[in-house]
């Protein structure tokens, strides 16, 4: 919890910025991509390309980091909570990946 709080605080200014200005460490993006490929892609689609029934993460509002973190951690609709499996920094890495991991 403490680390989440600090991370949230540290990121708070970034959420107010436009997506183009958000930068993430390459290692964080790599971690996020790995977690995504293993745990998220079965429903949200490989590289977010084929979301099918689950929400299209390419359209997730870039300013709503907190909602993303909450949904992943606590679950949302048919998505189960992941907070017991993923550490807060891993959920942060997922956010980084969703925002910036598949830019072409």
């Amino acid at each position, binding site marked *: 919890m403490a680390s989440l709080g600090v991370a949230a605080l540290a990121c708070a200014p970034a959420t107010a910025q436009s997506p183009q200005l958000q930068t993430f460490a390459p290692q964080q993006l790599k971690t996020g991509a*790995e977690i995504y*490929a*293993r*745990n998220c*892609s*079965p*429903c949200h*689609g*490989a*590289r977010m*390309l*084929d*979301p*099918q*029934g*689950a929400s*299209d993460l390419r359209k997730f509002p870039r300013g709503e980091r907190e909602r993303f973190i909450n949904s992943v951690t606590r*679950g949302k609709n*048919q*998505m*189960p*909570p*992941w907070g*017991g*499996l993923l550490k807060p920094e891993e959920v942060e890495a997922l956010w980084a990946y969703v925002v910036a991991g598949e830019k072409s």
Partner: protein
Amino acid sequence: MKFIASAAAVLLLSSTAVTPQTLDDLKNDGKNADNILTYGMGYHQQRYSPLNQIDKNTVRRLVPVWNLSLDNNWGEQAQPIVYNGVMYVTNARATVAIDVASGKQIWKQTLEWPPETPRVVCCGVSNKGAAIYNGKVYRTTLDAHVVAYDAKTGKEIWKSKAAEWKDGFSLTVAPLVANGVLITGISGAEFGVRGFIDGWDPETGKQLWRHYTIPARGEKGNETWPQDGNAWQIGGGSAWITGSYDPELDLMYWGIGNPAPWASQSRPGDNLYTSSVLAMRPKTGEVVWYYQFTPNDAYDYDACWELILAELNVGGKPRKVAMQLNRNGFLYVLDRTNGALISAKAYEKMNWASHVDMKTGRPVETDIAKSIREAKATEHWPSTRGAKNWEHAAFNPQTGLLYANTLHEGRMYKHLETKPHVVGQRYMYIENLPLPRAAGEPVGHIEAIDPLTAQKKWRVPLMDFQIWSAMLATGGGLLFTGKETGEFIALDADTGRQLWQFQTGSGINAMPVTFTQNGRQYVTVLSGVGGLYWNIAREQLKDKVPPGGSVWTFALMPN
């Protein structure tokens, strides 16, 4: 067991009314049309009923007689069980007993499982149905338990843990009662479990045996796995569809699921007994024979679903066969006494194999398969979802034909680099992207198929959505099935022409059944979107098809 004293005989007689059905009843399921006691409407899982009150002419008078809400948004896939005027229905959240005459709920038992459980459920939070034996109703739970309820009151009698859900195990399969043993499978191959089939004491819930679908080191079959490392311990092999059973041979036939991970490079070898059928003794779990459909399966060609048992005329001789419309695109006919291959013909478009070698029983893989195994993105037919998925086919012994809802789908498929297994997490390592669909290309078919030639007697193309409901064939010359868009439909089994439909309150991906009560024929189906196809089609359907489970029962309106 003969009673001599007349008092005892009277006692026996008077107790028959309340005495729960016996093993003989289970064996004879299908002969007493008032009851549906087994998964597949008979141990042979033909999903055929000789009932003919509802036929091609009278079906126009088929109307709903009752509807019961199941108060569940997760999806309905179960096959109802009917005994002595009471229907038993399950979903992931509850078990419900219903009076079949009035549609009124008699009892309901809800289940609690941790909200995290769906993390280890690959393909829909659902349940395929109950089993009934000796006054008890049995079911499996999402968090991998097996439960027995008193059939009359719904009171829980025992609950046994099959496995730890956090390790990737879940249960959706309907149990089988065979030769006095309660038998369940397991799900979890997408999470790198080592699959098994369990035998339980129906009275106490004590585990009698466990047979792993992947042999341990030193056991026959383990040599088909890498001999260094632990690939066999995390190699998949689920069993998530109820096995069929031949009481005369005392053999049950369980289809075994895909190996893990889907990407095959970390597990060279045939990987027995994944993507196979196991013929087993219900009392002990002993495997009498096996047949592997897809050795070293690199395509998620799960072989879990129905092995339909029948007598077929093969070259002028009656043969006891087990048939499967396998996910890999071949229609297999096996001699069920010994597992010998009788026929294996392609029934859908495929490019991964050219044919099955009738000498070895192995598919002959093509350059497409080579490309997939080299981890190149490859156009792949049929896709990992198969030429047919779990939506069970029916077999009419009068026509000798299989009736099935099949899939027509290729995908751009690619193996990814495999990472170490993490207990309780996905273990697949593939990319599976849609192909552009050619104009006029169907997404699936409803079809009548000759088991030995795989020739189609007729084939109805589906242009909008696939059908993921089981088929029911009747002596009235009808087929019943349901659409994802909610229509429950009746087709002419001779032509595939649709004769009747009724719009239910949600989408259908369940298993219709038919039975009688006081001489009147009823048809029942569960409505309620959920399951794998809802995951796939939800984006296109979410604004048109609301979730919400319910039971619909139909009968003919009096003249």
